[in-house]
């Protein structure tokens, strides 16, 4: 495999465009439940790609990303209810505030290493959650709902609104995947790749580790905020428990990435698929499916660290979204 950027990249771009057009037409042929399912798939895919960028590339294992999902959700509600913004215009606001929060926490959290950093991000998320639940005008612990008028402003019909939100989620899913792919293949992306392979070594060749990590963390937070905003726009209701849920926004995402394969973008797709299939199979068994996820993650980490995709890649040499620039083991 050579450094050729044109052919594989072109194939990927074409593939993504085809898939996007196909899925983009779904409002015309899919039912409401299916639309929601695909939308949910896209949101988790996006979160998984972002978490992969953080942990698999920048070496930042965060178990506190739910902070930014929640901030995104709340900022959408605040933007619509307090500032009178149209819902779609509130999404950039959500991104901005989420990114800002990340920028404030990062200098503190970056003083912690490895697993201590992980727990630190968790504490940060808990702190944000506690702050939001202490504000009475945000409904405190009970949360609040989106006003009907604001919801109606998105589109005239219910189907129209479902479609708009669906396209937003689709855009976020495909866009994040494409964006991550483009980032990793770009010049700043080289810094990320170097960081992933060997942080110390990367530093010695001039990669500014701190800044690379900082901007990755802030950027990921901002996009996560956007995802949170759209998710809660769809849910129409937000509360601290649902907004900042570790289980919903972090545990599931981590398992998706781990099982699919860390450090490989294809892994995010496969992992999300695996998660949805598992969920369908085990939905009647309640807590058991979380236990299965946990076991699967442990198995992957002790047996085949590269996850399902990594195993497929080693065995068959498959590669869909290759960001590799040279042959590795």
């Amino acid at each position: 495999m050579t450094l050729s950027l044109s052919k594989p990249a072109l194939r990927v771009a074409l593939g993504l465009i085809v898939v996007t057009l196909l899925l983009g037409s779904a409002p015309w042929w899919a039912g409401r439940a299916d639309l929601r399912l695909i939308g949910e798939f896209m949101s988790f895919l996006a979160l998984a790609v972002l978490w992969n960028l953080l942990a698999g590339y920048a070496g930042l294992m965060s178990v506190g990303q739910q902070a930014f999902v929640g901030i995104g959700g709340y900022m959408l509600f605040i933007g619509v209810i307090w500032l009178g913004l149209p819902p779609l215009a509130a999404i950039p606001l959500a991104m901005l505030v989420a990114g800002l929060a990340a920028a404030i926490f990062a200098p503190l959290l970056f003083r912690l290493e490895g697993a201590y950093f992980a727990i630190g991000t968790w504490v940060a998320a808990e702190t944000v959650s506690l702050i939001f639940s202490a504000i009475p005008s945000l409904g405190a612990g009970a949360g609040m709902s989106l006003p009907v008028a604001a919801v109606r402003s998105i589109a005239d019909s219910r189907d129209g609104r479902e479609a708009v939100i669906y396209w937003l989620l689709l855009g976020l899913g495909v866009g994040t995947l494409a964006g991550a792919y483009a980032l990793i293949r770009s010049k700043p992306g080289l810094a990320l790749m170097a960081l992933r392979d060997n942080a110390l070594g990367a530093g010695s060749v001039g990669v500014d580790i701190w800044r690379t990590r900082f901007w990755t963390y802030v950027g990921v937070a901002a996009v996560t905020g956007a995802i949170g905003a759209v998710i809660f726009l769809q849910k129409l209701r937000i509360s601290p428990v649902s907004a900042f849920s570790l289980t919903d926004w972090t545990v599931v995402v981590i398992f998706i990435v781990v099982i699919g394969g860390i450090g490989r973008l294809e892994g995010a797709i496969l992992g999300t698929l695996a998660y949805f299939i598992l969920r369908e199979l085990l939905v009647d068994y309640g807590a058991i499916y979380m236990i299965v996820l946990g076991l699967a993650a442990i198995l992957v980490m002790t047996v085949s660290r590269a996850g399902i995709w990594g195993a497929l890649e080693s065995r068959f040499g498959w590669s869909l979204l290759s960001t590799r620039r040279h042959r590795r083991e």
Partner: protein
Amino acid sequence: MNIADAVVQGILVGGLYALFAAGLSLIFGVMRLVNIAHGDFIVLAAYVAMVVIEASGMNPFAALIVVVPLMAALGYVIQRFILNRTLGEDLLPPILVTFGLAVIIQNGLLTLFSTDTRRLSAGPIETANLSLGGITVGVLPLITFASAVGLILLLEVGFFRSRLGRAFRATSDDAETARAIGVNTRHIFALAMALSFAVIAIAGVLLAVRSNFDPFSGPARLIYGFEAVIIGGLGNLWGTLAGGVVIGVAQSLGAQISPAFQTLAGHLVFFAVLAIRPRGLFPRMD
């Protein structure tokens, strides 16, 4: 409650937080591993104690005789057969595996015991109290604090005076060379985890007698223990005690302002220390 009362209560609960932290600190010291499921194992110990008590009618403190060895054995097995395989250059595997364990424990406990909150009854000692210089102090919190001090003392002495402690320190310094000298590091790591789990067992029982617990009480315990370790400074068990006290007092004073502010107060103090003295109050290692 007045300020002096709150501070004393805070100090005493700090002992419990220091116990949460001691186990974390120990294994980080020996093998640079942070057990994200630490808090969940504390809760597991509480449930194990509950089962033992219901089956035998024992007093919670007597139940320790069963719970401590049981948990220690569990810790040995988990380290030897699962976590040892994740140790190495890469930081992610141990974090992810212990994260997986946390999820399994929480949901396993949920499946077995439902979300009902539980509490262990220790009899009259629960409400007994002393008067120290005009302040009423509960006997149980006092015992808890004393246990924390006693355990930390034992661990420190053990680490610096015993043969096993020597092996722990050497393995912590340089595991590869320790192996070359003949130290069975796989066994040492497992022993360290067993020791950590013994502390976890004690912390679990003391927690269960003192407050309500349910399958999802684990993460908060991990966080308080973690905050105590960071505030106290890495590699120093006495520092961890100090850190526990700081968090305990912060929470206690915060609760005076409003109940909702209790946990948040601890977090804010944690971030303040991280900002001003990132290495903690009494760091002993890098």
